[in-house]
């Protein structure tokens, strides 16, 4: 089975918010003939600026491919961002009620590679880092 995880999100650089906020603050000060704005006024202005900039920013789409071999219970997720992986794990569980087991060195040896006897697996558990040199 081949499918993809699509993530649409609006990425707004903090620099743009900061620049637009400075412009909005100066404009308001001019309109009211004042030299400064209170903390609450600045906070309200920031909310307005964020809303306006967000509405004008288009979505960016990320697509992460997935292959799932249901015969071997193996799934490959073609993405490196950690948040994409976590999102996929959550969505996969919600969709199929199946929990994914990430493969890393220990789990690969313990779960995937079927060539080890129980005795060898017990030995694996007792390993400690090698003292080279």
């Amino acid at each position, binding site marked *: 089975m081949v499918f993809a995880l699509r993530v649409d999100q609006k990425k707004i650089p903090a620099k743009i918010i900061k620049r637009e906020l400075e412009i909005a603050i100066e404009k308001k000060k001019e309109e009211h003939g004042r030299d400064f704005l209170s903390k609450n006024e600045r906070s309200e202005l920031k909310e307005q600026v964020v809303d306006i900039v967000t509405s004008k920013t288009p979505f960016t789409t990320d697509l992460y491919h997935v292959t799932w071999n249901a015969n071997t219970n193996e799934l*490959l997720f073609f993405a490196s961002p950690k948040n994409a992986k976590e999102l996929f794990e959550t969505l996969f569980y919600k969709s199929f009620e199946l929990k994914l087991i990430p*493969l890393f060195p*220990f*789990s690969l*040896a313990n779960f995937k*590679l079927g060539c080890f006897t129980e005795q*060898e697996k017990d*030995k694996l558990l007792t390993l400690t880092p*090698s003292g*080279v040199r």
Partner: protein
Amino acid sequence: MDIATMFNKYAFLGHEFLTWLWYASENTPEMLNVLKNKKTELTVGNKVVIVNGTLQAGRSAKVTIQGEESDLKEAMVAVKDGGWVSDIYLRLNVDQVKYEFTLDAQELKISGFKCSERVTIEKDDDIDGAIMERMHLISGALEFIDLAFEQFIKFRINDKWNSQILPDLSGWVCGTESTAAGIPLNKRVFS
């Protein structure tokens, strides 16, 4: 034991595996003939990252050797100083197919994957076949990693790891041939 505990407690296995992979590719390539009826050749490419410090405590310093003109001797010095490989750029040939990718120690995750065989789609009807072909090509590299790791684990849980392989690896790192088992490295038979 939960997944997170296993991940942290045995993180050293990934680092030791990549360091061994580098050692084996240069000294005992026959150890890496893990794919049945296929000719395999592995060489280290132009990027090696070494971590130095307490891996399990998460306190570590990184040394990155990267670039076309990079000299892996510098990476070797970092290993000699107690470091372990955390990322390594590999060139793998399986029969006629050439792969290049970076392998990371923590998750054995592949990045920057390149394959010499290209799959082209000329008609919409070709898509299914192209996906299968692409998956077949990718699985060639994944199978090698799995089997090489299996080979490493077999050595790692064997008494020979401490008596033979580790002294050889140390000798290679320090530039002095190990005399473990009283047999020169190039005459050893690993099983």
